[in-house]
């Protein structure tokens, strides 16, 4: 599987290079703005730095799907599917590659963020810094679990899209408007997932209508842990189902 991952990285080379260059340019803007005390450049640097987190996630998502679709659709797919590897290894390698890219991106991004924050802190406080400091003092490490869960949801989204796309090239391959049907399947699966979570959560939330939450820690003790645990559980189950479903279709039903 490591060799599969190696080639997935080579396929994603363009994304990695473009992302690194974009992040580099943004950091240069920020540093120029900071050292030259140019408010416009500094503002652009900070704004684009935060935007980069969102666009980075979207770029990884789009690339992961684009590469997968291209291999189902084009003859280059022979290179992958003629290998002595099963569908579980092939789909798994793609998901793991996205995960590794995300982790590396996250580490680079957070490191740069800490470095930038330190620079600003050393120079002295501002309203924004006051806000950030207060935010950090209120939150605790459980915030990391919410970030983790967000990433998990993001992976489940990739897997759900993989599943819907694979359906179009297997069971729906002879059907007209298969792309549209796959989109409907994706929407239905997503609705199913959010409905499952909401249904379980609704009783708990209903009981909290009149409750005043004075602090983040009270929120966590009243419902936060419950939400985290439930979200984690449902997403893991759903993600495993999507992974097994996609891999099964690739292994047993896919005709290129």
């Amino acid at each position: 599987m490591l060799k599969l991952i190696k080639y997935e990285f080579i396929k994603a080379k363009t994304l990695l290079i473009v992302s690194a260059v974009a992040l580099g340019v943004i950091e240069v803007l920020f540093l120029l703005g900071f050292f030259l005390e140019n408010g416009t450049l500094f503002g652009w640097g900070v704004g684009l730095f935060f935007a980069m987190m969102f666009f980075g996630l979207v770029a990884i998502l789009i690339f992961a799907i684009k590469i997968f679709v291209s291999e189902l659709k084009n003859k280059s797919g022979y290179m992958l599917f003629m290998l002595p590897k099963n569908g579980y290894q092939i789909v798994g390698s793609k998901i793991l590659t996205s995960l590794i890219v995300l982790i590396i991106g996250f580490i680079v991004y957070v490191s740069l963020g800490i470095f930038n924050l330190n620079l600003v802190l050393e120079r002295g406080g501002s309203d924004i810094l006051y806000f950030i400091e207060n935010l950090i003092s209120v939150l605790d490490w459980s915030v990391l679990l919410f970030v983790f869960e967000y990433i998990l949801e993001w992976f489940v989204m990739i897997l759900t899209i993989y599943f819907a796309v694979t359906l179009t090239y297997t069971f729906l391959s002879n059907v007209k408007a298969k792309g549209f049907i796959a989109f409907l399947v994706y929407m239905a699966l997503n609705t199913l997932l959010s409905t499952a979570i909401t249904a379980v959560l609704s009783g708990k939330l209903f009981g909290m209508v009149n409750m005043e939450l004075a602090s983040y820690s009270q929120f966590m003790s009243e419902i936060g842990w419950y939400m985290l645990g439930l979200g984690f559980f449902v997403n893991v189950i759903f993600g495993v189902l999507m992974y097994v479903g996609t891999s099964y279709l690739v292994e047993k039903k896919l005709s290129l």
Partner: protein
Amino acid sequence: MLKFENVTKGYNMKKALDSVSCEFEKGKVYALVGPNGSGKSTLMKIAAGLVKPTCGTVMYNDRPIGIESKSRIAYMSTEPFYYDFMKIADVGKYYGDFFSDFSGDKYRELISFMELDMSMKVKSLSSGMAAKLKMAATLSRDAEVIMLDEPLNGIDLIGRDQIINSVIKSVSPERAIIMSSHLLDEIEAITDTVVMLKEGKLLLFGDAEEIRAKSGKSIVELYKEAYSLNSTFNPADWGDK
């Protein structure tokens, strides 16, 4: 060795293969012939695990097509299929990374024999060069079954000799070679067994020498007879089928 039993593959309402049953044995060179759309490529892709049959079974050494068969069967598609980002050297590395029967030395030798250069980008190759590259990569595997789909497509006369010679070098008592081609006259001389397909059905499967002896005709002549309009060709007269 490689056995098809009542294999059917349907696309929409059309059957690319229709209840095909046959068995390929090691030590033989098979010519898989038939006009466009007769099911040659589909049959090969099913054996390569790239296409799944609608019904019927395909077994390789008594086991279904899967990881094991893919590691022992080398398939060369008629279309170019290498990743655009690759150079010729990268194709060799890729095969070497995934196929334990791949020989880097043989690959280098074949690339040189085909007058290609390791530093050439796959994307920039002419169709003839791309076909030679596919041949070199496929024949560098010490596979038990080698399937070549239209290996002579888009190749000039000199190139055809290179390809036929490299196929001859790959013949072994431990290996089956299956070649599809429209250019039957080019491959007849090296063919042991003829497999004719027509509209997805197996028309003829038999020993080339016996067929020639029984019919008193060359395989090329029989081919023209079998696929001509108003054909009265009766395969039972000449082959196993």
